[in-house]
């Protein structure tokens, strides 16, 4: 045991002395959380829009006020003619232009309908769709108010849509679980595979294998620090997303942490497996990136929903563990469900872990 502890201490020294390791361990998680939260935000907040009001009456004033006071948009410019539209969009000063037709207010009162045009910048399709949806919703709301005051007799069936679990459709509710998955992949699989292949490359692994340390002690000694540090990382991410974005853990925290530990084990055993196959650090990095990072980013449902993928990609995604873990933490963190709802995914992850561990123990060359 004393031998083992000395070995673990050395492993910690390796990590603390290496600036790059420290950045990966603590810089990247914080940066990613903040980055995804603020910069890559898919929420609309004060998006600049321009108005071309050909009517200039009380009604158009009301509608545009309503749009601008929603918090999603702000008025960037007031245009005078159609020719200005192209100009402002090209200058990228505005994300969309809203046009009120001539005699908007009069038509609305006398004919019961009037037209608004929404012109968006199609070079940013996501943003364009988002803006269209939001403005449509706001005008629909305006219609309701109008119907409520002027023509209360007209009964309209209005669908009322509510987003459960994430009522304001906040983007970072989705990315925090994704970042946790990504970070654990990065730290556990990548760093473990690097640290073991590094010993191989330096020739220190041979010395360790000739020493009285048992191979299992060497393996455990190498992964223990990463286990502890990635666990600290998860807590750091949870605290950060709670403090900065107000994202609480709805479900059982203990269950969440336990599931995270399970996933850390999975990533660590994958890291060991990679290191038994890779001869150099470059190979190890390459294998972890292709084997873990890409599936985590592309095939886990973190950024692109699996439901929207062509069947074949869905099947491919099912072969990689991040998908299941993402389901688990989303369920626990955001929906607040208990173990009963995630036991299937948990079993799948346990199975993955056992397979990876079995393979790496078989591959780890005890006797070079």
């Amino acid at each position: 045991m004393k031998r083992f502890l000395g070995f673990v201490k050395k492993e910690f020294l390796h990590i603390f002395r290496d600036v790059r390791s420290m950045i990966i361990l603590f810089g990247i998680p914080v940066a990613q959380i903040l980055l995804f939260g603020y910069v890559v935000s898919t929420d609309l907040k004060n998006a600049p829009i321009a108005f071309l009001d050909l009517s200039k009456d009380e009604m158009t004033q009301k509608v545009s006020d309503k749009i601008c006071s929603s918090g999603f948009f702000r008025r960037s410019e007031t245009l005078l003619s159609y020719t200005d539209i192209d100009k402002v969009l090209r200058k990228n000063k505005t994300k969309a232009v809203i046009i009120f037709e001539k005699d908007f207010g009069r038509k609305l009162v006398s004919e019961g309908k009037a037209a608004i045009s929404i012109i968006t910048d199609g070079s940013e399709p996501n943003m364009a769709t988002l803006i269209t949806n939001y403005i449509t919703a706001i005008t629909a709301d305006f219609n309701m108010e109008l119907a409520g005051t002027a023509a209360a007799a007209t009964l309209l069936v209005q669908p009322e849509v509510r987003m459960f679990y994430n009522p304001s459709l906040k983007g970072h509710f989705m990315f925090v679980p994704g970042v946790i998955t990504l970070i654990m992949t990065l730290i556990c699989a990548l760093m473990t595979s690097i640290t073991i292949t590094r010993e191989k490359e330096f020739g220190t692994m041979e010395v360790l294998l000739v020493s009285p340390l048992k191979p299992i002690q060497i393996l455990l000694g190498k992964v223990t620090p990463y286990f502890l540090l990635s666990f600290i990382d998860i807590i750091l991410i949870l605290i950060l997303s709670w403090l900065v974005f107000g994202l609480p853990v709805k479900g059982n925290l203990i269950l969440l942490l336990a599931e995270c530990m399970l996933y850390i084990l999975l990533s660590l055993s994958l890291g060991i497996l990679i290191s038994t196959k890779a001869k150099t650090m470059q190979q190890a990095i390459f294998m972890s990136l292709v084997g873990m990072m890409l599936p985590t980013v592309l095939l886990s449902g973190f950024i692109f929903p699996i439901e929207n993928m062509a069947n074949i990609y869905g099947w491919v995604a099912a072969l990689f563990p991040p998908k299941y873990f993402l389901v688990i933490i989303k369920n626990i963190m955001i929906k607040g469900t208990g173990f009963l709802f995630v036991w299937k995914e948990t079993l799948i992850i346990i199975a993955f872990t056992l397979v990876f561990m079995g393979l790496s123990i078989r591959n780890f060359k005890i006797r070079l």
Partner: protein
Amino acid sequence: MTKNTVISVRNLVKKFGSFTANDNLNFEVFEGEIFGFLGANGAGKTTALRILSGLSEPTSGEVIVAGYNAKKEPEQIKKNIGYMCQKFSLYPDLTVKENIMLYGGIYGMRKALIRERTDLLLDRLNFREYSDRLISDLPLGLKQKLAFSVAVLHEPKIVFLDEPTGGVDPITRRQFWEMIYEAAGRGITVFVTTHYMDEAEYCDRISIMSEGKIVALDSPADLKKQYNAASVEEVFVKIARPAGTHPPSPSLL
């Protein structure tokens, strides 16, 4: 010198599939001896060394190292040997002291003993000023000497050196061999593989391997007499390349 046998190898065979890396090796190494293990690349030196140090299992034959059977008790062997390989084997991002503490700890030495030996070692190498320096800051020669000192820190019965002086300048090599002599004087058996024929002259006895077999084994002086050669190098060339049978192979030189 008392002739206690510390390594005894009988009919050692190691096969990888159909390839025979070690073909029926037989030899003994005595306590306090410096035993040189020579051979061209691919002659089977490294394979034999791995078996002796408990890293690899023999296919057949009996191998006793420090009183333990290499097939059945490799863990016991590991406790009683030191090992230094051709690749440099200390951690570059740890200091001299930390490396020593680490290896001492791995070999189960008590802290007080490690400290005592560390002081002794640093004094002997004139190394005290370097004790808190990172290994990566030291020149190769110093590292190599330190690596050897660390390999014998726990006073093993046998120390295995696998081409320990690769890439080191002649003066440092000389000093390195002085350290080997000193260790042997303390009763540590030194088992060393090398390419350098001048180093072979320093050994008490040498064995020369070729194509998985030991083709010669004796003291350098006797071998030279036997083969009517001026140096071990000449002996080596004569053995490995019997006159005119095949063209010179650069890997032997």
